[in-house]
């Protein structure tokens, strides 16, 4: 896509807390109609990054433009282009869904018939129209989540930022949220989606930035990222016994690229895993480990993450 359709441009974002570099040179862009995923484990710097993008947090250095306008804590005009959905619920429990929407709508400059129309539309989309007059403290967790996202959509932003919107959500609501996000990108809205769920990133995102320890380790489409690790399979083995010895033994097998322990699990990246699987099982048994389960998966973003960081996404 050309420059005319660029919605978000951020470069070299940095934020340090004491000695710790929470964000260390992060940069990426998102174009109109594109869904961009920031995939990384908890504490990787995702929320700090989007806090700087939204102008919620002062950055140490770097540059952020939304729809061509610079945004910062003191630069508030460009905030109108963003719809921000925080990770935690951010709704008033003692107000109704309608009152919540009307209030935030007014803050974004909506008034009169347009405010009413947008409120009605969001209540319909989120399935809360028939409960619009109920205080949100009476809502189920899923309903609150839907309203939380609906507030971000109310003013029809150019860029929707969703910070781990499915954390702590039941499977049914989670699917509903993912369907909604897919629908939004289809309508031409740019979406920045942070998650530590590989499946969500694979399902929703046109491009993914893999972030760890405050740095974007790699970025691209799913295909581009998977190509980073070649045609390698990931083997997940659950073992008991002498696990450390088993890891060392596995690394010695020809065709094994990487082997890392995670609790009682060994994650292995290997060329043509099905061929070398018997050898893997044999060396682990010889090392004193008892194999309790084996799972061979095709290359995916989690394998990429493992390859780039040496650890699993949910460690």
């Amino acid at each position, binding site marked *: 896509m050309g420059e005319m359709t660029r919605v978000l441009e951020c470069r070299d974002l940095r934020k340090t807390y004491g000695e710790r570099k929470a964000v260390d040179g992060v940069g990426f862009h998102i174009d109109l109609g594109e869904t961009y995923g920031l995939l990384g484990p908890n504490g990787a710097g995702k929320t700090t990054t989007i806090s700087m993008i939204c102008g919620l947090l002062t950055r140490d250095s770097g540059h952020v433009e939304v729809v061509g306008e610079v945004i910062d804590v003191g630069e508030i005009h460009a*905030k109108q282009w*963003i719809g*921000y959905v925080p990770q935690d*619920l*951010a709704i*008033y*429990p003692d107000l109704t869904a309608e009152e919540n929407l009307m209030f935030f709508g007014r*803050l*974004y400059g909506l008034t009169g018939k347009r405010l009413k129309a947008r409120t009605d539309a969001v209540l319909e989309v989120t399935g809360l129209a028939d409960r619009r007059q109920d205080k949100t403290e009476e809502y189920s967790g899923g309903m609150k989540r839907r309203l939380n996202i609906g*507030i971000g959509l109310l003013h029809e932003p150019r860029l929707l930022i969703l910070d781990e919107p499915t954390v702590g959500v039941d499977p049914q609501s989670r699917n509903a949220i993912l369907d909604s996000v897919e629908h939004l990108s289809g309508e031409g809205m740019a979406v920045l989606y942070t998650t530590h769920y590989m499946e969500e990133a694979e399902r929703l995102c046109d491009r993914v930035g893999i972030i760890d320890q405050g740095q974007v380790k790699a970025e691209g489409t799913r295909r581009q990222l998977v190509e980073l690790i070649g045609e390698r399979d990931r083997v997940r083995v659950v073992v008991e016994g002498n696990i450390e010895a088993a890891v060392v033994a596995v690394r010695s097998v020809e065709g094994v690229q990487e082997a890392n322990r995670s609790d009682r699990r060994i994650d292995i990246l290997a060329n043509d895993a099905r061929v070398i699987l018997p050898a893997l099982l044999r060396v682990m048994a010889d090392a004193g480990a008892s194999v309790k389960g084996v799972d061979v998966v095709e290359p995916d973003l989690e394998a990429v993450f493992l390859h780039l960081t040496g650890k699993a996404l949910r460690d």
Partner: protein
Amino acid sequence: MRAVFTIAAKDLKQRIRDRSAIIMGIIAPFALASVFSLLLPSSQGFHTDYAVVDLDGGPVSELLTSRVLPGVVEAGFADVTPIADRATAAELVEDGEMGAAFVIPEGFSEAITSGRDATITIIGNVDAALSTQIAEAIATGYAEEINAVSLSVAAALGGFTTVLPATIADISSRAAVFEPSIVVEENEADSKQMSDKTFYSASMAIMFLFFTAQFGILSLLSERRQGTLTRLVAAPVGPWTVVLAKALTGFVLGAVAMLVLILASTFLLGAEWGNPLGVALLTLGGVVSATGVSAMAATMAKTEEQASGWNAILAMSLAILGGTFFSLDRAPEFVSQLSLITPHAWFLRGLDELAAASGTVADALPAVGVMVAIGVVTGGLGLVRARGLVIGR
């Protein structure tokens, strides 16, 4: 500016809906003011009954019964009932039906006009000590005036000790011009005090104002806890917009609570607040100071609970020091001086100024100025800290 009103309107709706501001700002202070007004002894509302037993019936005793004591009745704090004999009077006093009794013995006038010693007896009751003390003071004042006139007359007559009947009338008329000090003497300081009902209404109003005004800035901490502050800051509104909206919420809550309390205490308790413009200015000053002080206290805390606790301690300390529970008239001088660091003392002082017979709005302006200054200084600090809360979260 529209965003300030939008946020403040939302906050006011929440506070009204949870009733906390109504309870703290209106119901609690009005209830306490009512209780204090009804149950505590009144300094201004003193009233007693006196019996007078005139066994003399002469011209000098008539000075007391026809001139001095009617003045007491006219002053409005006692009724006087003539009683025929001493025993009945003593019985009435003992039964508590009379606060005290004056007994003028037979031959009193003759003794006075002959230059002999004469005695007025006051029959009192230990359960009505104040009535007895006032009766003694009235009698003492009367005796002093009679002595002064007698001495004067005696000197004019060249040392004669017997006063002619014609002279007695003259004594009577001249004695009458001596107003018994305890009855009619105007004490300027007393006349500048509010009535008890007004005092308790005003003191409870200003004390609870410091609890009501805190709801504004306190909601900043509440928004931070429930995550909505992030969303407010993510909207196209600046940090100062959020902070000013919270301050405006506290100000409006305080002002409305004060207005309701003033009207309610006026119409239901009979409080007399004084010149409406002066009261309005004093209320404005009080609300500004309460908003400022509570903003400073709330922003020192990290949680709502902590902020509420600190604000409560501060509000109560200032209220006690500021004389909202008792008048500072009888307090040591240094306490009176120290109280002037509190908006409460200035608020009550301003109302006292308005209560004076000659009190004008201008007399209340110094108190208004001090309260506004306290509010601006503390509020300035509080708002700067509140902005830090918004940005740092």
